[in-house]
């Protein structure tokens, strides 16, 4: 495992040692950094989400299966692009993974160029995804500073309601609403309502799509 990043990191999780080893051999020939794991559990324990990488995982494994691994990663909001290795009869299962956001699946035995282009695509996608993951993470950090009452107020601002209406909704005075607004603007480093909306919606957008 060289310290100098080449074209990017590829995680390989497969319980068949030969497949794993041969995949590593193949991808290293294409100048990728390859890290192999013999089970989903060992991958999860060592995986660093800050690294830009992609994951190739066997759909059938002893212990935790590829599908379960995908579920875990979604729980963690991992931006890691996933591609599944499937056997001959596992196409319906593979389709299901695609619905959950997997990039693609490849059937054994692999066609070399197909695999390489897939890996390229995934790494490309990963770059964007990781940037997004980073900004989302910073937004989350900002929003987490708000009190619950402030969050309620922000929610109504984003919905386009006036201060008076907000005061009515929450059963508080307009003055109090104005004070909350000032606090929110300060905490989120926003100068205008437009900034406020950008931050708030940027946070909400992945939530609704998931």
């Amino acid at each position, binding site marked *: 495992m060289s310290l100098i990043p080449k074209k990017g990191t590829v995680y390989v999780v497969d319980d*068949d040692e*030969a*497949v794993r*080893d*041969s*995949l590593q*051999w*193949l991808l*290293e*020939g*294409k100048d990728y950094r390859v890290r192999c794991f013999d089970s989903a559990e060992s991958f999860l324990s060592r995986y660093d989400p800050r690294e830009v990488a992609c994951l190739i995982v066997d759909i*059938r*494994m*002893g*212990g*935790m*299966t590829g599908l*379960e691994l995908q579920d875990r990663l979604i729980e963690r909001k991992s931006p890691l692009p996933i591609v599944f290795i499937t*056997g*001959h*009869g596992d196409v319906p299962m593979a389709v299901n993974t695609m619905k959950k956001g997997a990039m693609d699946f490849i059937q*054994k*035995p*692999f066609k*070399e160029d197909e695999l390489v282009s897939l890996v390229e695509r995934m790494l490309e996608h990963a770059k964007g995804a990781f940037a997004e993951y980073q900004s989302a993470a910073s937004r989350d950090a900002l929003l987490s500073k708000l009190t619950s009452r402030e969050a309620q107020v922000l929610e109504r601002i984003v919905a386009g309601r006036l201060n008076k209406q907000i005061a009515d909704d929450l059963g508080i005075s307009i003055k109090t609403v104005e004070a909350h607004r000032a606090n929110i603007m300060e905490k989120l480093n926003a100068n205008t309502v437009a900034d406020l909306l950008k931050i708030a919606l940027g946070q909400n957008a992945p939530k609704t799509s998931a």
Partner: protein
Amino acid sequence: MLGPLLAVLLFLAAIISAFGYLRLEEMDREQEAVKRDVEYAQQRVRLRLLERQEQLMRIARDISNKDVDPEEFMGRAEALVVQYAELQAVTWIDERRRIIASYAAPSVSGPQLRVAGDVLRSGETETMFGLARDLQQPVYSQPTAGTDAGGFLQLHIPLADQGRFGGVILAEYSIDGLLRFGAPAEVSAKYAVALLDGKGRVLAGTSVPARNAATHLLPWAAQNNEYEVPVSPVGNGLIMRAQAYRTSLGMIGSGLFWLVGALSVMTAWMLIGNWRHTRRRMQAQRALVAETNFRRAMENSMLTGMRALDMQGRITYVNAAFCQMTGWSEAELVGRTPPFPYWPDEDRELLAARLDDELHGRASTSGIQVRVKRKDGSVFDARLYVSPLIDAKGHQAGWMTSMTDITEPNRIREQLSASYERFTTVLEALDASVSVAPLGSEELLFANKLYRQWFGVQTGGHLQMVAQAGMPEHPRDESLDDVDSFVGLPTGALTAARSENAEIFVTELGKWLEVRSRYLNWVDGRLAQMVIATDITSRRHAEEQAAAQAERAQSASRLVTMGEMASSVAHELNQPLTAINNYCNGLVTRIQRKQINEEDLLAALEKTARQAQRAGQIIQRIRSFVKRSEPNRTLSDVAQMVDEAVELAEIELRRRNVRLTHYVAARLPQVMVDPILIEQVLVNLLKNAAESIDNARRPTARRSVELRVIPQQVDEQQVIEFSVLDTGQGLAPEVMERLYEAFFSTKAEGMGIGLNLCRSIVESHQGRMQAENIYNGAEVAGCRFSFWIPVSGATNNIAKKDAGATV
């Protein structure tokens, strides 16, 4: 019995008491005689003393009257002394103790001699002198034995001198002499007469010596026959004693006693002898009675009739059985002469001739068969045996005939021959060939019709069947066989042994025969072997067809199993193929870029080759599993079989993400099985288990199958148990019932021949198969399929069969 003895004893007692009485009487009489004689002797001594005293007193009176001077005194004293021998000395002593005159017998000497003019010496004599002076009466001295004066008795007669004491006349007697002359001769002759002093010491005479101590103890010797009496003028100072000499018992009296005693003892001895003799006779008589009763009981209990004839042909004796047989009583038969009443009229002449033969000793020793008429007129068959009757002197006194009723044996014989006929008919009609031949001989003892049809009347067929069936003609006891085939053979054990079965093909007949043989003791006691052969050709064909069918089914089932596992197999094959593909592509890339060194190249190529081998192995394993092969039972290693099955099944289990753990006990014995078939069963069970888990959609943690192979004991039989435990949904009750039905399946794509076939495979190995649900509380937690295969039984039986089939 005791009476005579008692009488003898009484008689003896009477004799003894009579004798004792007489003896006492005699002793009394003797005592009386002693007393009388002693009194008489004492009387004589006394008289003599008194006479002397008288004479001396006369002298004393004369001296007192001064009529006598010492000279005359001397003369008169001399006359006295000379005349009376016992008188030893006479002395005249004056009042002043001076001896005036003294005359002594010549025999007196020494100190006893008194000399005139001497004064009386002080002492005893002087004391007596004083006593006589004082009493003025004659005084006798009290002689004492052992002193000087012991032998003498002194008599002091005082003299009166005008009314005064004028001295004494001292007379001295020899006590010895006194006894000698005083005691009558006849008394002295009869007794030991002695004179004793006042203390009982002997002064003179003899005494009977004391008896020895032993005799003193005897009662009749206690009193010595003696008598003592004091001599009266002297008083108690002088005692006369007479002792009777011991006299033996009168010979006549004791002789009589001994005679009577001896007779009594002899009488008693005779009585005892008599009594013992009588007792012995009684015992002998009792024994005789017992013996007679025993004989009588024996005769009566015998079923054989006994009849004794004397030399003239007269019946002298019949026993109870004879009377019972013929119906005539003993009284009616004894004393009869021929023709006897039990002779049938029509056989009379024949029987008379037979009897004549009998009487002349010409009867055959094997007996003669005759007909006998009972009193009620019925007739039966009997067999007679005759033997001479010898009396005590060794002369023939007649003939003893025993008679046996042979009607029943005759009937039984007829029945036997009838049943033999029936038996033979059955044997002849049997559709199995039955033959019996002795061991080690060409002789054919028995063969039924079918055997004769097949092999003729030679032993060849029998021996061929025995040889072909692989059964030893001789029992398999080699140590005995080496010596002799018959010596020491436990024939009882042999014939009791289980018969052996074998199926053989006889080319001459073109038939398959099932041959059973067993050893039996032939009627003549020889050990023989019986072979029963049944034609099983058609059955054999059917069996072969069925076997082929089963084999095809098994083979097909394996194909089906593999078909069901096809996608798993494809996946399994994809793994090495994928790896090979990857290695090759990687190589191509590197070679194109010239980025590879030789070392990496070789490593990659080796890895590639290994993956190709792996793919080949999978295909090989499947091929050997599916390949149709002849049933081949060999001694197989259980662990190896399990490994093969597990590797095949794991293809499927992996695909279904089911974990398999298996445990095989150490040191399991080898089993005689067809390993492919057992593998088939295991693969089926493991595959079903994985499917069941899949269908139950268990989470990963609960997707496991456990295979255990352990030795067990079933019905006292060593078996190996294989069990497959899954965590699936178990079996519904209705499924459990129909589990082994052919073409019953719970699976949409299943054909329903898996479990059915598994069971028939297990049962063809003498094993059993069973299924049960595992419960966790009320919920079904899984299912356990298990089967076992016997170790020893399978090994032996199949080994034998196979050995027969392959040779």
